[in-house]
């Protein structure tokens, strides 16, 4: 399938494929940024359209900024990308 974000063969699911590429790009950007800023916070899970960071309590706002910037910037679409942020003491609380 020839598309904007790459040319993956995904005849049945070009849309899913494109969305998968966007989140992968975001993951790489988030990972690099955390590493670059030598942060204690780490990317620990991806669930398709969601990233989970184990965030050091003193880095919360910085991590949120990184997530927003990297995820919004992962693709340039003609419609805005929107990100929902949640924090919590367990995966239960972040949903």
């Amino acid at each position, binding site marked *: 399938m020839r598309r904007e974000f790459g040319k993956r063969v995904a005849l049945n699911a070009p849309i899913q494929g494109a969305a998968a590429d*966007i989140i992968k790009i975001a993951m790489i950007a988030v990972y690099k940024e955390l590493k670059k800023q030598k942060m204690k916070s780490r990317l620990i899970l991806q669930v398709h359209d969601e990233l989970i960071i184990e965030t050091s309590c003193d880095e919360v706002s910085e991590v949120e900024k990184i*997530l927003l910037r990297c995820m919004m910037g992962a693709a340039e679409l003609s419609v805005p990308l929107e990100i929902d942020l949640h924090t919590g003491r367990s995966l239960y609380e972040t949903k």
Partner: protein
Amino acid sequence: MKKLLLIDGNSILNRAYYGMMGRNMLSTKDGVFTNAVFGFLNTYEKFFTNEKPTHVAVAFDMKHPTFRHKMYDGYKAGRRPMPEELVMQMPIIKDVLDCMGIARIELRGYEADDILGTLSLQASQEGIEVVILTGDKDMMQLAGKNCMVLIPTTSKGNTTVHEYSETSIKEEFGINPVDFIEVKALMGDKSDNIPGVTGVGQKTALTLIVQYGSLEGVYENLDLLKSEKQREKLEKDKANAFLSRELVRIDRNVPLDNLIEEMVIGKADEERLYNLFNKLEFNHFIKKYKLKRTGMKKIELNKHIISDISSIVPFQKIYSYTNFDENDKPKEFAYTSDGHNIYILKDMKLILPLMGYVKEIGGHFLKRLFKYLLKNKIIPPAVSVDTAAGAYISDALKDSYELNELCDKYLETEFPEEDDVACRASKIYYLAYKMREIINENGGGKLLDEIELPLIEVLASMENAGFRADAKFLKDFSLRLEGDIIKLEKEIHAEAEEEFNINSPKQLAVILFEKMKIPVSKKNKTGFSTSADILKKLSVEFPIAKMVIEYRKLSKLKSTYADGLVKVIADDGRIHSNFKQTVAATGRLSSTEPNLQNLPIRTELGREIRKAFIPENEEFQLTSADYSQIELRVLAHVSNDESMKDAFLKNEDIHTQTAAKVFGLDERFVTKDMRRAAKAVNFGIIYGISDYGLSEDLGIPIFTARKYIEEYLNQYTDVKKYMDEIVKFAKDK
């Protein structure tokens, strides 16, 4: 010592066909069935190895009528024709035999039996030992002094080979092999439509021949038979008995031109055989016969052992292969920069200093090596190519991206026999170049370089990090579930008025549909179905169905999640999932062992599991960030549908807008149910759902579902245009 192996081609091919038949009958990607040929070759291999013949011949029937048909119109009448899938394999096996240098004999007007009968007689007369391989018991008449008949039979998946020699036949049946002709004449043969004497079976026929020696003997002594009935039967069908004898007698004097000398095993035409096996996708036999593509570039390796730091050859760009032990520690490591000179590390401790020099690495499933490097605080080098990821980009639908398979598929290169770590490093070198070429051609370079390759380190780091899991919480939760399950079990047993194993679909079906007489809506192969959707339908009327659904839900929660997750918590108190990059055809990542991407979310009880996933300690918390409706936004973007884009640009609720459009109302009048329906259609469009699927999801009639989809596509005209293009593209491909 000469030894001739004679094979009844039709019979063995037939056996192979039915022996390897099943729902997924072996076939090539072009749809040529190959199960019989494959089975035949396996059988051949087995007997060739056991018997060690010097000469081999395979005889086949021809389509033309034989002397038997001329003698008796009804010969083989009523026999089912050979299935189409087997017919198409006939020319293939003949081709294979020719390529293998195995003599193949067929003669107009004669059956394979007669050819084998003639050859076996000739050979034994010349003092050559003969072994006949067949699935046909009639051939037992051919056993003789130097001639053995081997008949494989399969029962319940186990094959045993019956070996019949002259002596063993005498011992077992009390007659000479040739007397089987007389026995068969009396008993007839349904499968060949040979009449024999009606009412005489094998036992009677055998007793008679043992006693009187031949048909003539039997008929001369009819008076002596005690049974009146038997005598009558024999008298009535006398003509048939004598006709049958001529039909079952294998002709051992067929005018064959073939000399036994010519059946010596010839030299295989390896090039043709390779091409043929390649076409048949018989990699097993290509390997077995060590066949090589011709015109292949031959690679020779120059191996160097690196035993200490000072002898490390510091290349900036390497291709490497690592073997790991079960604890994910490297145990063998080789690298190369030219595919020919291979450096093998003697001590795994040298990997880390080596990586100090390396700027770019090529490999195959590099994630494992990167995990090791990261654990040792080494920043992994950039990835030039990962041949597994590259192959995935070229063809995301393959089940496996094993290195040797990729070499076979993409390279025309012959590597040294020994598939060691050095050889693998060389393979990666050549494959990496080829992969680049292919990906540049099909335009996947950006995807590889900007996404899949940089992702490897990210995944390695995520896997190393893992997710802290609260074992105590999981154990408590398991106990709580256990209590609920026992309680529910009691309730179900009370409802059924009997104790039974709820986990056994069979017992459950008996309770529901036999004892409780709940009307059955669907039967499957094994009996009455108790599948989730059946139970769901029944649950409206029958409380027990609802209870079983709940029971299964709780059991699954307990076994897969509560208990299952505790088991995979590592020593560091964290769960390290495996993120696979080359599994999903859609390009999605897939998490396995355990899968952390499908933790329960729908039910309140299931969501509890998520409480077990916590930060390392009080100094940390969890942050989640998820894209809202990313797929619909992508759809709006790629289809360039103005009204869909509009909803997102104005930050309106897309599902409400869709509902308003599909139902033709103002957004203010959209009900919850309408929005739900619209949401289902929106996602249905992305995931390619059918009107049937939508009707099931929403519990509406199919024609209503179809109307929703039609109206949707009428409203979002550019989405429709985009979908049509995709379908067209898929068809053209």
